[in-house]
């Protein structure tokens, strides 16, 4: 599925990052990140492993604290929110983990019900089941409802992980390496699912990846993260239309692995 132009609202900034710094010990992974993500836009953050891509989205959803700089999500500065305000914000932000992070001890049904029943306590059992069935149909896996995570394939786990975040109807989706460890065909299915999620749920997304096919298929805009900073931003074609050897190398090794 080729990425189509969407009704991105360039006036409405959903996520705004200013001069963000984060280090772990001596490792200064983010060195002054600036980024604006507009409503209903899919932004891909591209970069090599260990460059702090995942750290960036973990800061956005408040899992990690920045050393300095500001991260504003839906008009709220994440770092300054108290516990209940942060919980409120997290209801609007879905996070799809690299290894799916499904709860091993629970079935797919329980995995999906877990955030739902705890955040909408007045829902009846039938309403919960209906919501689970609906979201499973959206990710194309209605038959897995009573399976355990250990019985699912890598691609199915990714889809269920995405379904678990979609069940709360988020406004923002953060995908951490959605195609890592998947075969090319399953990867394309996941890319299509990311686009489908945007169509159906009208989400704004940040997709962290080092997979150029994923970046090309899902991203309206791609930001290249290198040495803790965004080297260049633009569409896929704009990004790689450059003389910069570091960006060219990334393209060559990732796509055709030659030259």
């Amino acid at each position, binding site marked *: 599925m080729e990425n189509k132009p969407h009704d991105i609202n360039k006036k409405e900034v959903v996520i705004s990052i200013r001069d963000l710094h984060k280090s772990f010990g001596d490792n200064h992974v983010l060195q002054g990140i600036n980024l604006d993500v507009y409503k209903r836009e899919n932004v891909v953050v591209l970069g090599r492993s260990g460059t702090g891509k995942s750290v960036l989205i973990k800061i956005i959803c408040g899992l990690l604290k920045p050393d300095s700089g500001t991260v504003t999500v839906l008009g709220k500065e994440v770092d300054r929110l108290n*516990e209940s305000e942060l919980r409120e914000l997290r209801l609007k932000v879905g996070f799809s983990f690299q290894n799916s992070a499904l709860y*091993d001890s629970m079935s797919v049904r329980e995995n999906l019900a877990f955030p739902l029943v705890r955040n909408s306590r007045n829902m009846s059992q039938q309403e919960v089941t209906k919501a689970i069935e609906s979201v499973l149909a959206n990710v194309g896996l209605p038959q897995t409802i009573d399976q355990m995570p250990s019985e699912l394939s890598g691609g199915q786990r990714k889809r269920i992980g995405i379904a678990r975040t979609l069940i*709360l109807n988020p406004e923002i989706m953060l995908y951490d390496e959605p195609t890592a460890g998947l075969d090319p065909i399953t990867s394309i299915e996941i890319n299509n699912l990311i686009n489908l999620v945007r169509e159906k749920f009208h989400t704004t997304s940040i997709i962290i990846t080092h997979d150029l096919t994923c970046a090309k298929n899902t991203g309206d805009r791609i930001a290249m993260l290198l040495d803790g900073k965004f080297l260049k931003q633009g569409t896929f074609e704009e990004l790689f239309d450059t003389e910069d050897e570091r960006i060219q190398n990334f393209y060559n090794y990732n796509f055709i692995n030659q030259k």
Partner: protein
Amino acid sequence: MDLILNANEADMNFKKSGKYLITKKIDSFFLHLYAAFQFILRFFKEVFRPPFEFKEIIRQCYEVGYKSLALITLTGFVTGLVFTKQSRPSLSEFGASSWLPSLVAIAIIRALAPLVTALIAAGKVGSNIGAELGSMKVSEQIDAMEVSAVNPFKFLVVSRVVATTLMIPMLMCYTGAVAMLGAYINVHQNEATSFISFFQQAFDKISFLDIFSSLIKSIVYGFTIGIVGCYKGYNATNGTEGVGKAANASVVVSMFLVFVEEILIVQITNSIR
């Protein structure tokens, strides 16, 4: 929330600044102690705050209590039987084998039942909690709960600690009963004492304080085993290696603390007696 819940993060901050107040090891020890204290404090804050995870507490009670029954039955029975068998020759030397029921009852109810239950639970339940939460931590399942606006501390930690604090005293009572049964079988075989007269003699020397202090002890042990397992699991790092370390540390630290608490509570009880 500026509480240091993760001692590893605190360690990293120190490493970053490169400055230590005393030495690296001493600083790290106090940081971990502080983090553990904050963890316990958070437990007491969360345990009384709704919403309550009753279903999960009951599931954990089943895991901690019911699933330990087989092991506890065997251990309790053997402890009672063997303790009686080994004590008989010494008492017989003084012609005092009729004191066996009361001696055994005092030993079992005052010391053996709480201690044996706690050590078995530290090995079985503590390691289980440490490994389970540790693997949830390193596979980002705890983070997944957090980002889906669910309080993982309440669901994972509070339910487990409440379950161990409730179930270990119950298991202790059960261990005591099974151990006394083991003792009775041995006494009955050798002295042909009847069931009623054995228990009459046994409970003759047991006071309310003995039972009460054992109950208090096992509540403290239950809380210790639960909180140590959860703390170690919740702060696990470094993949599968970290999970192993968390499970191991849960057992070692909780056993160590159980013995320290035993000494303290025995001193307090003896000063009251």
